[in-house]
């Protein structure tokens, strides 16, 4: 086969690869010459938004990144926190939005594969996956096809690999119809002193290519993920990679075995921009250089060019810098797992990346140059239309005539309803660590050999962020942390996935900048370091951007796994309390959207000190064994939280349903009190015999709280003053909640 003729390097070619004219000039200035075709490919990938964070870097610096438990902050494959007794938790969230829109099954599957590798390159064994998904209206057959493809892809990859999917959320809004979001978070466990990093230390150390063979799939994936879509999006299908979870499982076992044997100096996953990324980022972190021979790369197609070999995003591959003299041991481990492990070069001094292909030098660039992508500090401005949206008063709309019916309707809205249709397609227990299965506020996993457990949750409400990016993003942090607190765990750290439209539009960049400020404020107040994450920009199709959607993943620690809480009521005659402030708003609420089709209004105020105290009080009450259930008030407000606490135990834990009888304060209009959304609010059930102790603890906690009523019976009954405004059988409530999403997918 004759090798393909390389195109001539011109400005037009550079542009077609995603570089701007200024950036192309910058490359020429930095090299002092025109780049070769292969070199141009390196720059186009490493200077893409996806790899270089050109537009987001100036903002990301605002996030707090340190804390006493931080073992690894941003900049590595994943972040790591110390959880005591010699253990560390390694975690990260990442998006695979663009590929999942083009090819839902493989896009989502390889999203799972990518984040798993990020965790096990750190030396950690993955123990949990969570998926945060956003779609358009599930009543639309095209959206259903996307949902089915994405869920099947996640199911296929995670199940075959053998990592349980324990949580996440799925929400629906028309703004995601042309741009679904697929964010996957993975959590792993590692001994705190056995964390590996993506560094190329030790001049002369051999560089090994391990794992799957390289093909032409995924070339320019990183560049594709750094542009908006138009009606020809489907033509980009060849840029989506194809996953092989079986090979990934072998790669996991081989890598962990190699790490344990002491042959691994540094290791990085070949994710976005494949070999190009690894061969430049690893030496960049260590101030070294690298010399590689591409002819040695295991290939599954014939006649691949240097350009293709460097930029392929074939899955399930790693680059390992091995200890000199231990090459044979490394190769034996990979041979046992029937995987390739081939030396393709070595660590060099001098700081250059030298790439050869069958002896010919095809690229020779200073690694610093590749790492020096331009950083943009572009202008941003609040959009003029926002003021009008915020000015809308939801109380100008008519009240429902039947509040019970309104609650049933809300419980059946796909965003609030049960997601069991998706979760039952995922293995939730492999590894036998899952103490709380998906569906409660947070998933809980034990740490074997200790009394400890970790709790994990992801959250993010695009409507809230759309109406008020700063407060909305802060609310996402608070809610994810509150969910973890509702399991009884102390939140320890954050990973964030920032999904936005094109940063080249000043209003989108403003949303982004404000959201970062909100995350930073909330993280500082709750003392949560952000130890890693991912930015996904350009989530637009034909000029329509998604709702700005920062998804926040929080990991927390329970020192005693025996003292965990779940969201459902356990039995009759327990006292129900509401912790937190009364202030709520229908602005941006699920109720306003579901019932009135409106996305407008103002969010309820957020007081971060109250938030911190409420969470501490919930944890203290759970830790003291006073509380038998704890559930955060989120979408749908207090009424939905109460209804869920009554009925979700049946599906999640095979328990009977438990009714409730509560009296709410007459503090505003009924629809606002029932369905209004506001921060820092948690419904708890208290053991009746320990009511006094609970009251004393609340007084000590200095938080607003009130008794609402009691559990029991088979009806969800809500009174406002002396008038009963909701009186529904638990069967009816459960049916609405259980079928609200599934009815679209059956």
């Amino acid at each position, binding site marked *: 086969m004759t090798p393909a003729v390389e195109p001539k390097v011109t400005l037009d070619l550079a542009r077609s690869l995603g570089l701007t004219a200024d950036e192309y000039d910058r490359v020429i200035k930095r090299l002092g010459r025109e780049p070769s075709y292969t070199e141009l490919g390196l720059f186009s990938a490493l200077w893409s938004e996806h790899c270089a964070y050109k537009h987001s870097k100036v903002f990301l610096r605002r996030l707090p990144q340190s804390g006493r438990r931080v073992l690894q902050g941003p900049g590595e494959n994943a972040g790591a926190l110390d959880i005591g007794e010699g253990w560390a938790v390694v975690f990260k969230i990442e998006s695979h939005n663009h590929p999942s829109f083009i090819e839902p099954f493989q896009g989502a599957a390889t999203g799972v594969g990518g984040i798993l590798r990020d965790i096990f390159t750190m030396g950690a064994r993955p123990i949990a996956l969570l998926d945060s998904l956003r779609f358009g209206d599930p009543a639309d057959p095209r959206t259903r096809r996307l949902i089915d493809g994405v869920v099947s892809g996640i199911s296929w990859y995670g199940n075959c690999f053998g990592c349980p999917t324990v949580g996440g959320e799925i929400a629906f809004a028309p703004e995601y119809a042309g741009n679904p979001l697929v964010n996957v978070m993975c959590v792993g466990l590692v001994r705190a002193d056995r964390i590996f990093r993506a560094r190329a230390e030790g001049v002369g150390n051999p560089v090994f290519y391990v794992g799957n063979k390289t093909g032409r799939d995924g070339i320019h994936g990183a560049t594709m993920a750094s542009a908006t879509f138009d009606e020809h999006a489907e033509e980009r299908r060849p840029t989506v990679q194809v996953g092989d979870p079986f090979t990934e*499982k072998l790669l996991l076992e081989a890598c962990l075995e190699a790490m344990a044997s002491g042959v691994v100096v540094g290791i990085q996953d070949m994710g976005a921009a494949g070999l190009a990324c690894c061969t430049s980022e690893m030496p960049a972190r260590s101030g070294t250089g690298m010399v590689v021979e591409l002819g040695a790369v295991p290939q599954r197609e014939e006649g691949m060019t240097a350009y293709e070999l460097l930029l392929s995003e074939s899955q399930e591959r790693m680059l390992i810098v091995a200890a000199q003299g231990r090459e044979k041991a490394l190769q034996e481990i990979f041979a046992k797992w029937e995987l390739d492990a081939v030396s393709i070069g070595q660590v060099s001094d001098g700081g250059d990346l030298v790439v050869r292909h069958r002896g010919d030098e095809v690229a020779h660039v200073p690694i610093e140059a590749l790492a020096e992508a331009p950083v943009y500090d572009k202008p941003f401005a609040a959009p003029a239309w926002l003021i009008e949206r915020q000015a809308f008063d939801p109380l100008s709309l008519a009240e429902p005539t039947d509040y019970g019916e309104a609650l049933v309707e809300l419980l059946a809205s796909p965003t609030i309803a049960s997601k069991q249709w998706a979760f039952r397609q995922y293995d939730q227990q492999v590894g036998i660590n899952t103490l709380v299965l998906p569906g409660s506020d947070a998933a809980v996993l034990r740490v074997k050999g200790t009394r400890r457990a970790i709790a994990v949750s992801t959250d993010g409400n695009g409507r809230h962020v759309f109406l008020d990016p700063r407060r909305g993003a802060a609310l996402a942090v608070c809610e994810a942390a509150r969910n973890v607190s509702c399991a009884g765990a102390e939140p320890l750290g954050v990973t964030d996935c920032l999904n936005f439209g094109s940063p080249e539009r000043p209003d989108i960049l403003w949303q982004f900048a404000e959201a970062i400020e909100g995350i930073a404020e909330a993280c500082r107040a709750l003392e949560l370091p952000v130890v890693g994450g991912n930015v996904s920009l350009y989530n637009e199709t034909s000029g329509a951007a998604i709702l700005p959607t920062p998804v926040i993943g929080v990991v927390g620690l329970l020192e005693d796994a025996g003292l965990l809480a779940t969201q459902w009521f356990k039995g009759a005659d327990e006292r129900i309390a509401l912790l937190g402030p009364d202030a709520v708003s229908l602005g941006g609420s699920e109720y306003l959207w579901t019932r009135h089709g409106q996305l407008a209004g103002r969010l309820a105020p957020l007081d971060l000190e109250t938030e911190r105290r409420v969470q501490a009080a919930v944890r203290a009450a759970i830790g003291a064994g006073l509380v038998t259930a704890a559930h955060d008030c989120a979408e749908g407000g207090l009424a939905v939280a109460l209804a869920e606490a009554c009925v979700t135990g049946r599906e999640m834990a095979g328990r009977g349903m438990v009714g409730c009888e509560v009296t709410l304060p007459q503090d505003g209009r009924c629809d606002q009190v029932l369905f209004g959304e506001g921060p820092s609010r948690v419904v708890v059930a208290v053991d009746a015999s320990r009511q006094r102790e609970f009251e004393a603890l609340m007084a000590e906690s200095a938080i607003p709280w009130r008794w609402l009523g009691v559990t029991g019976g088979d009806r969800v009954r809500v009174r406002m003053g002396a008038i009963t405004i909701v009186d529904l059988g638990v069967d009816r409530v459960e049916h609405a909640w259980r079928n609200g999403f599934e009815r679209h997918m059956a």
Partner: protein
Amino acid sequence: MRFGVVVFPGTWSDCDFHYVISEVIRQPVKYVWHRDRNLDDLDCVVLPGGFSYGDYLRAGAVAGRSPVVEALPEFLARGGLVLGSCNGFQILCEAGLLPGALMRNECLQYRCQSTHLVVENVETPFTRALRPGQVLQMPISHGEGKYHADVETVRALRQRNQIVFRYATAEGKVTKAANPNGSIDNIAGIINEEGTVLGLMPHPERAAESAMGGTDGLLLFHSLLGSLVEDGTFSKR
């Protein structure tokens, strides 16, 4: 009792079985690599769940022809016991050590959920600690768990009392609604004619600690431990 947990490329319940055997029932246990033919120092071999060889051909098809599985007849001949769960059951069928086959779930989707099993046969080394008709709760997690065999085979299984577990309601009623994958006759687990090879789709190792939601899976292990008599040979029933 000395256990061996087989590891194929792609197995993932190996660590879970190993943990339950060593930490919960506290018996000696080791991993057995799929290329190993030497099962001399073992009393019970466990074929765990997972996706051996990715299950890219048919579930269990490649593993069913592996060296360790080829060594099983000899191991059985000298009195060994074999327990296959999930992928292990699929492998045993592919290897011809159990009749029938596991096909794609009737719903065409993967299913991870809790199931109830009614115990049909307590005259086996794996179930002798149980009562006839007892209902156990154990989770399933599979995409290809629909048990199928021809009419003759199913009749023979019934006649010889080889059907050990059937999917049922919490009350022990065998109904269509209680069948999670479309298995013929609600079959969840069967045993060979000799009563030495048990295959089941549910995961007993996931129901072995109260923290994990139940301990019914332990009853299989308790049955096994009880069936080893003092002189170290297996009691013949």
